[in-house]
């Protein structure tokens, strides 16, 4: 099992964020949970990518530049 950390989805915040961007858009029941899942997987990808960048630069910590490069790659992959 990948996840043992106790985590609840910020369901109403997720709905509010989507509402902020697209006020007309309605979410069917439990779609917010899948959005949460998608967000977790997005952060997962971002983390993996940032870690790879840090390794390549022989850095022991994730620095902003590693995160920036990772962000570009991962946001592109996240396009629907």
């Amino acid at each position, binding site marked *: *099992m*990948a*996840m043992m*950390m*106790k*985590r*609840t*989805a*910020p369901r109403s*915040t*997720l709905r*509010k*964020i*989507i*509402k*902020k*961007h*697209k006020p*007309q*858009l*309605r*979410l*069917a029941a*439990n*779609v917010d*949970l*899948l*959005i*949460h*899942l*998608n*967000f*977790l*997987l*997005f*952060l*997962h990808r*971002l*983390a*993996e990518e*940032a*870690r790879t960048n*840090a390794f390549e630069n022989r850095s*022991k*910590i*994730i*620095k*902003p530049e*590693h*995160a*920036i490069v990772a*962000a570009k790659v*991962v*946001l592109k*992959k*996240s*396009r*629907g």
Partner: protein
Amino acid sequence: QRKMSEPELASSLIKKVFSHYVKMPVARDAFRIVKKCSERYFRQLSNDLEAYTQHAGRKTVEVADLEVLMRRQGLVTDKMPLHVLIERHLPLEYRKLLIPVAVSGNKIIP
């Protein structure tokens, strides 16, 4: 009238999840980038979901739209079905809401 703050995810949540996945130390400024990136992600996601539902002639985002989206993102594949991702990443109480479970008495939930 009280001014509502912009809805956004708690930094602590983003930090917690990202650190959990990255498994190495993260500079403070790098977390700021992750937060910015998350905001961009939600903007992009909203646009995509709107496009999908409009294309289907609906006004409501359905579970199927998310599945198609995740397939396009390369997260859901033939070898990695959506319910496996749900089982791996979401806590039990949410899993139960998303995956129909056969229970005794021949009832299906939900």
